[in-house]
């Protein structure tokens, strides 16, 4: 918890004008998350520890920009620009640098989604999501991936822990903080960031000059996520694996076809999920629309 800001609702309410009825929601990564009312509507309030002395709450640009700040900026910028209804929305307060009880903080607001992420609800207890829900998740998160790629960005951290469900049943992709920007400044230079058991093979090899990193990396991670939620098991990782084992399996192993684990899964859906996890980008889908069409045809059948 050392990297997470230690805050109380009272401290926040005392500092932030126009925000009331604040309640703790939890911690995610390096963020402390609260909910609060702004203009009568409830939003998520997210706080990160800012890098101490270098920050001045009135500044918006810094000579020295640590990764954490770059990531927060990237996350906010992506939420603001992304047109997909299945990407979490930015709240009324964008990125701000504030000090609460002497703690320099980075702060922003976003759409509040009630409940737990899919990692907590399904992946950790090794439960399966219903097959039609898996297909719906595939369609909706692919829509978000497409919208992020419209911005020439790659999310790079698609996994059950970064997907939640709205009350209306729609799936929502969270946390674009690691997004790789093909056109701009990159977090960690496009290197190894994210969650390795959801990495595409090319994410491990990004130092190679010829490696192509594009939305198809996100399709790989989404394929792993769908596999996991449809079968109750990860396609490449088992408890106790070392990172080298995972790397080797992601690069070389052919996972058991999902329909052989869960008899409710059709051959067609198996083919789609396995293709999403193709070892090279050219083996996956070259357009998100193609994948969505295929998934919708599965849903229809």
């Amino acid at each position, binding site marked *: 918890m050392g990297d997470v800001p230690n805050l109380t609702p009272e401290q926040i309410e005392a500092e932030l004008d126009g925000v009331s009825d604040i309640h703790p929601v939890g911690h995610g990564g390096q963020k402390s998350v609260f909910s609060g009312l702004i203009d009568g509507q409830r939003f998520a309030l997210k706080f990160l520890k800012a890098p101490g002395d270098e920050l001045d709450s009135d500044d918006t640009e810094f000579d020295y920009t640590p990764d954490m700040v770059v990531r927060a900026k990237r996350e906010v910028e992506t939420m603001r620009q992304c047109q997909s209804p299945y990407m979490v929305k930015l709240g009324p307060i964008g990125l701000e640098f504030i000090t609460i009880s002497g703690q320099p903080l980075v702060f922003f607001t976003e759409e509040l989604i009630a409940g737990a992420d899919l990692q907590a609800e399904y992946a950790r207890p090794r439960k399966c999501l219903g097959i039609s829900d898996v297909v719906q998740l595939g369609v909706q998160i692919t829509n978000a991936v497409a919208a992020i790629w419209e911005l020439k960005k790659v999310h790079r951290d698609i996994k059950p822990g970064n997907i939640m469900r709205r009350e209306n049943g729609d799936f929502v992709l969270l946390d674009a903080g690691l997004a790789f920007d093909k056109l701009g400044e990159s977090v960690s230079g496009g290197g190894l960031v994210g969650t390795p058991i959801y990495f595409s093979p*090319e994410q491990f090899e990004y130092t190679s000059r*010829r*490696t*192509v990193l*594009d939305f198809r990396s996100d399709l790989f991670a989404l394929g792993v996520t769908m596999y996991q939620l449809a079968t109750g098991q990860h396609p490449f990782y088992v408890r106790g694996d070392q990172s080298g084992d995972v790397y080797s399996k992601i690069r070389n192993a*052919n996972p058991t076809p999902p329909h052989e684990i869960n008899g409710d899964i059709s051959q067609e859906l198996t083919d789609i999920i396995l*293709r999403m996890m193709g070892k*090279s*980008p*050219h*083996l996956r889908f*070259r357009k998100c629309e*193609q994948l969505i069409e295929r998934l919708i045809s599965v849903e229809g059948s």
Partner: protein
Amino acid sequence: MSFYLQHGHGKSTRITDAYDDGSAAGVIFSPRNEKIDKLNDYIAELRSLGHLDLMLDPQFHISTVSPPKDRYLPDDYGYYQAGRTTRDFTGARKIQKYAQETLDFQHAMDLDRLVAPTVILSAFSDRWSQIALQLADASCDHHGGMSSPKPLLLSFVVSESAFDSRTEVDQFLDELTTWDATGFYICIVRDEATYTQRFDPDRFAHLMYATYVLGELNDFEVAFGYADYLGLALRAAGASAIASGWSQSLRQCHSNTFIKTDNMARRPLVRFSSGPLLNTILLSELEQIHGFGRLNDVLSGVGLDAEITRSTSPESSDWNERLAERHHWQTLADIDSTLGSGVRSNVRGLLTRVAHAQSLYSNLESIGVRFSRNCNGDHLPDWDEALNEFVRIAMP
């Protein structure tokens, strides 16, 4: 049907004959061999016949291998300039200009596809490959801004040796599959200058794999120029069209193809295309086969076989170069028409044909038929190995 004629020098009535025979579904024009006014008139004439897919290989790539004095293309192809070097491709503006000029030129013609300019690659990692990628990228950009353009095919002219490295092929495919084009027009530059169906099995398998990835998996149109018999395997793997022409230099592409010579071409020996042997053989070899009473075994099962069978023997028939050309296209188009949309079943069918051809060759040789080099069955073990390797890597 997806067999196209590769246009070249001396078209005469060859294209219309192939259309009348029902063997050609399209034509790939060669600027080198036609002035633009005549070509436009000819396109109008072909349009009046009925439906043919028409496209122009802009032959931009030849500008980097032909000497400055040798224009290679007639003067009225304004996008072309002989003697270009790598220096002519430095800077985005030059690349954009080449893409624009080449595509705009075709846009003004009555063609069904626009073919992007390219340069010749020896390897997928060489300097020229980067230039080819830049030209493709610039072509996509320019095409995106054109008013009601015909669909775009990105063009690549690649030495067969580039397909040695699977890793490099994979990396290149990762890049090719990012583009929003309708498809690709690909020419493979053969190592061997003579007309042969032999092809290194690993290279051939990797080439089929690339075709499968582009055509079958990623839904691109993939047209192969100068493909001939080898093109049948590429069609099986997912290519949408293959082309072949009347002379051997229009059936297979070799670096000699890019050099203008004033030498009189040697008159070719008259051949016969045998579907069951998956090869062309000399008329004298067909005569031997007839002498052993096995003529029916090597006939292609197409209409023009009758020109042979209605005579007392092949050599006493009226068989000539022109009939041999038309019969060759009928044979290719006939085999092509047996290929369906399923790659696995196509390959299985082709493997059966290869096995049959191997058995037929060895049977004919065992009874005393002597085949010359390049007319024998030496290519068939290569094909068999390549097809099996392709299945292993593409559809494990």
